[in-house]
């Protein structure tokens, strides 16, 4: 009797470890396991965790492109090298495509963790740029609500720390192979502009992607 109870208990524990997150959208267990490989670092609901940025609501083609660029060691930011290069070394394009679609369909939540006093300045730079400093409008490509389009990423609601790090590292010489014109645009941004943009964007709550993002 005791042995049967133990077996039932072990079976219950093993079954509870199945990917319930994946079950919500009807994915098979294999993809579910891959999703969990991502959510270890990107947060159980894919909203971001620590240095791992939010994946929820990101554009499909952007996610696919970044996975390909990690795999090819093209995107070489320090944390990319440390975490994403090993994470993607066994990933194939078809699986990447499925993962990208899965994450893109999750509703993004804004991090709301920027510096509130810089939001006004950040909004102005985001919308109209700063032409006197040769800074272009971010909104022209990334959209009025930071939603992105096609392979241009959604920025709205990403964490202040991630946006700041991403913009700063372009000026430190990382990820120069990124799609133009981002490295050059970043080169026009000083620390104040970066803090302002990252602050403003961290509060931008966009609308979830359509079924076909």
């Amino acid at each position, binding site marked *: 009797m005791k042995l049967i109870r133990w077996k039932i208990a072990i079976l219950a524990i093993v079954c509870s470890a199945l990917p319930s997150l994946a079950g919500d959208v009807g994915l098979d267990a294999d993809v579910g396991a891959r999703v969990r490989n991502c959510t270890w670092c990107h947060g159980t609901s894919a909203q971001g965790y620590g240095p791992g940025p939010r994946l929820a609501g990101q554009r499909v083609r952007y996610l696919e492109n970044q996975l390909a*660029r990690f795999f090819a060691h093209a995107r070489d930011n320090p944390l990319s090298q440390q975490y994403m290069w090993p994470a993607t070394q066994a990933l194939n394009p078809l699986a990447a495509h499925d993962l990208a679609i899965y994450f893109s369909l999750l509703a993004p939540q804004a991090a709301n963790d920027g510096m509130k006093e810089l939001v006004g300045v950040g909004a102005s730079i985001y919308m109209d740029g700063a032409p006197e400093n040769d800074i*272009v409008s971010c909104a022209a*490509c990334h959209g009025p609500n930071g939603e992105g389009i096609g392979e241009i990423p959604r920025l709205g609601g990403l964490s202040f720390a991630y946006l700041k790090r991403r913009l700063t590292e372009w000026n430190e010489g990382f990820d120069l192979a990124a799609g133009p014109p981002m490295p050059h645009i970043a080169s026009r941004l000083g620390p104040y502009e970066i803090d302002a943009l990252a602050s403003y964007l961290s509060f931008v709550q966009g609308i979830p992607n359509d079924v076909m993002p």
Partner: protein
Amino acid sequence: MKVIGLQLALPAAILAIAISLAGAASGWGREKAARVRVHPEGKIAYCMDCHGMGGQGYHGYLIMPRLAGQTPEYIENQLRAFAEHTRGRGLFINMARVHGLSPELRSSLAAQFRSFNPRAFGGGPRNAADTGRKIFEEGVPEANIPACAACHGPEGQGEGQNARLAGQLFPYTVNTLKNWGRDRTGDTASIMAPIARSLSQPDIVAVAAYMSNLH
């Protein structure tokens, strides 16, 4: 100011080789990217951040049109129209501000873009190209629409204040023709207003597709 330096640096910049890594149909390569772009100096770099490295245009959330090979008079007229708010009102960005340039700088930049000639952006449906070519070369007589080529040049290369159309982005041309009266209200725009209004939607798509592939 440093126009001559730019004219030397720019071909080098445009010729910089980029290895595309993302989404290749044959799977992913393992080559380390060696894409180091030499960006031009000066104000033209600011224009190219949106309008593309060679001025070929860019399809972001907004569609930034091709400036390469455009007639200087047309560019200068548009820059003035943005400044005077006879074009570009109602967009979520302040078009007058992002295009704010002194008249001298307008002339200088327009002259630089005239000399660039990257490939046509394309993007239009190819099955409409034949109909599009007919409209471009012969107009639509039953709707009193003149041939585009009559004013815009037999190859769409533009003439004076009549814009170059060759290689223009397909969705940009479609949007421009559909929204003419709402978006452009200045004097230089008035001649196109009845033409844009008379074109049917399939005609717009066809002629825009044809022109998007013209080199």
